[in-house]
């Protein structure tokens, strides 16, 4: 049931306030309700005494750059550690294939390709283990460019030079179906020709071309008009990995005990709808696992002044 809700929200449904709460959550809500006025102000001041770190962001950026550089250097120095690009590769001889690219190819070509099935199997397992959309924030080179564009957008927005015009989150689900149908009907991998993930990955490895103009155009559009447009409202790769991450053991969890419900986490989040539980009275339990659409980027963990958000491996706590 929880899984279904998380998938629905990922596909575009608005998150709802829970209909009922666990007794522990109710008790904690009540206890927190007693803290008001000067005491709450003191708690907030205390929480923000330290400047928040960028620990996870730095680790993640380092990982993203390293992964992409392995591709680049492996070809540049011909060490054949990793061959190919992010759409498909061979890692020390093992087939890897990007799930979404493999789906597009099989829909367009209409043949089940054994190597591709093996490659997607490996990748499916890897990203299931690591959290699904972890691919987006920890590997996709466009994500990094878009994060930088987002910073520019926010800086300009602060000076009232640009305004974000958000779109309906369901757009991505509709486009997912449209691109799948287009591949089947046309017999071409239509999405691949505009996918900035593939374009940037290939540009890094094989040298940039005209296609980078499209990517830079997208980034410019995101800066001026729509914050994180591609990743939030369009990219089918994100949705594909979102499904994988829905049942992943690695996730971010929320603990309401120390949370002051200020919403710093939602402000930095690419997909703030997954953090709805951090609003007052929106968590149905004391601990809540963050939904499928989460990219496990860790920005919320960095931003949270009370340590209420954490990475967690499901079941590992019980094991240890």
């Amino acid at each position: 049931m929880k899984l279904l809700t998380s998938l629905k929200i990922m596909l575009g449904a608005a998150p709802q306030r829970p209909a009922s709460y666990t007794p522990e959550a109710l008790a904690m809500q009540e206890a927190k309700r007693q803290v008001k006025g000067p005491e709450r102000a003191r708690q907030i001041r205390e929480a923000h005494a330290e400047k928040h770190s960028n620990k996870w962001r730095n680790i993640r950026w380092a990982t993203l750059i390293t992964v992409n550089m392995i591709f680049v250097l492996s070809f540049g120095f011909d060490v054949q550690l990793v061959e190919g690009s992010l759409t498909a590769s061979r890692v020390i001889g093992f087939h890897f294939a990007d799930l979404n690219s493999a789906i597009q190819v099989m829909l367009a070509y209409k043949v089940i390709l054994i190597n591709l099935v093996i490659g997607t199997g490996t990748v499916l397992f890897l990203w299931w283990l690591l959290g699904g959309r972890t691919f987006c924030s920890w590997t996709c080179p466009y994500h990094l460019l878009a994060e930088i564009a987002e910073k520019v957008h926010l800086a300009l927005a602060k000076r009232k030079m640009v305004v974000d015009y958000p779109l309906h989150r369901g757009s991505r689900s509709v486009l997912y179906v449209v691109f799948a149908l287009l591949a089947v009907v046309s017999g071409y991998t239509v999405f691949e020709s505009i996918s900035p993930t593939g374009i940037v990955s290939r540009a890094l490895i094989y040298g940039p071309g005209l296609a980078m103009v499209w990517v830079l155009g997208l980034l410019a559009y995101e800066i001026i008009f729509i914050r994180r447009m591609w990743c939030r409202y369009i990219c089918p790769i994100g949705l594909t990995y979102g499904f994988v991450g829905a049942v992943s053991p690695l996730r971010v969890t929320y603990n309401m005990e120390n949370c002051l419900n200020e919403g710093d986490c939602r402000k930095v989040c690419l997909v703030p709808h997954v953090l709805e539980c951090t609003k007052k009275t929106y968590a149905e339990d004391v601990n809540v696992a963050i939904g499928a659409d989460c990219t496990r980027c860790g920005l919320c963990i960095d931003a949270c002044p009370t340590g209420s958000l954490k990475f967690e491996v499901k079941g590992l706590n019980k094991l240890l």
Partner: protein
Amino acid sequence: MSEEDAAPKPPPVPHANNKTRRMVMRSIAMGGAVVGASLFGFFPVLRKWTPRLRPPGAIAEADFLAACIKCGQCVQVCPVRAIYLGDLDEGFGVGVPYIPARDQACDFSCDAVQCVLACPTGALSHTVSKKEEVRMGLARLDRPNACLARKGEGYKGAARPAPFKGVHRYPEIDRWKPVKLAEYKYDLELCDLCVRECPVPNAISLEPMSKDPADKCKTPVVHQACVGCGMCEMICPTEPASIVIDIRRKWGDA
């Protein structure tokens, strides 16, 4: 397929007010724009703006564009770096490999068609296991009047002088290291470069042009064994090349 068919339907609006209506309109416009942009890929493909010589083993063009996952593994294994990836002007051919034969032809110096083995999707078909089975196209003498052999002329110096960057493996020099064509000097009494450097046995030969034994003039003749690798097109010293590859033409085709 028209653009209307592809434009996404409006997402459900629970309680439409002006703000959400505007948001939904924006979303539809954006969806239409993105799908529209992706469909631009049809133009170069259907209009054949950029005909490309595909690597060995490439299946039929439409299937090839569909089956290729655009990863470039074929590019990485090629010892002479003959394979390049398509750009935005090729529409759905973005990231799809091709061989610019005049600049760098495939000379099969890898022996075992490495690009075919590297392909993870079978876009380069694994039914091809040796160079003689490849069918990329066919060589054709495009400018017979420019051909040095037909004029009875020899050739001295590099086939393609600097700044030409193309390379070729000469087994007698180094089996494993390709040599720049600009650095390899020939001294031929009669130019027979296209025949001499052809990597496929019995694909091309020089035939006399007349019955007169004193007549030095000979003409290159392409035979059925030709695989269309483009080596003759690259090595031809005339500018532009006298011999070219007809992409995907098969023996017996008009």
